[in-house]
């Protein structure tokens, strides 16, 4: 299945890109993406799926947008 991966802030800078497409038949959860991801994420990385906060155990469907970003600092 095809997943769009987005990175924000310091993670975007670390990846060198803001977005990439991920194709794999061996993905069912966010944890699978993390396991197959080339570069390890910092431990405090936050996750969203389709723009809603998500977790390693969140199940994915083809076409989902998964984002990885550092703790937030708005306000």
């Amino acid at each position, binding site marked *: 299945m095809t997943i769009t991966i987005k990175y924000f802030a*310091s993670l975007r800078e670390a990846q060198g890109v803001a977005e990439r497409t991920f194709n794999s038949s061996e993905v069912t959860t966010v944890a699978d993406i993390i396991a197959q991801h080339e570069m390890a994420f910092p431990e405090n990385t936050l996750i969203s799926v389709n723009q809603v906060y998500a977790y390693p155990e969140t199940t994915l469907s083809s076409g989902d947008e998964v984002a990885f970003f550092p703790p937030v600092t708005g306000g």
Partner: protein
Amino acid sequence: MATILIRIDSTPISAWQLLDQFEQEHLADNKLIGACSVFTGKMRSSNQDDEVVTMTLEHYPGMTEQQIRTQVDAVISEHPVDACLIHHRVGEVKPGETLVLCATWSAHRAQSFRACEEIFEGLKSTAPFWKKETLKNGDIRWVETNTKNPRP
């Protein structure tokens, strides 16, 4: 139904002018509102003992608005208000400029006080914004915290 307006914009704002406009546009005919609570956050010229000359805010277009809205809905289900206005700057911000405005209107003060504070705390800990500071000595750094994925 509460009037809820959430805006994210890169233009410098006057919080007081936005509040004036919002009241005139949305609340002029509502004579049952007795209370309005407002919080404005401004950029400080100092952070962690370093002099900051400029700050750049990044956000996650779409998710940021949606996450704030989720937070607002949760808070006002407990502290009902007639209206809520949230405005957050993104892009480049200078010391003294307003970063964020959070305002709530209600019949009596308890609701507006509680809702304003809780909405703002929720925004700070869950809305996807990230601050990058440029210091006077030329260093550039991301502001770091340790917020968590909010469990639903």
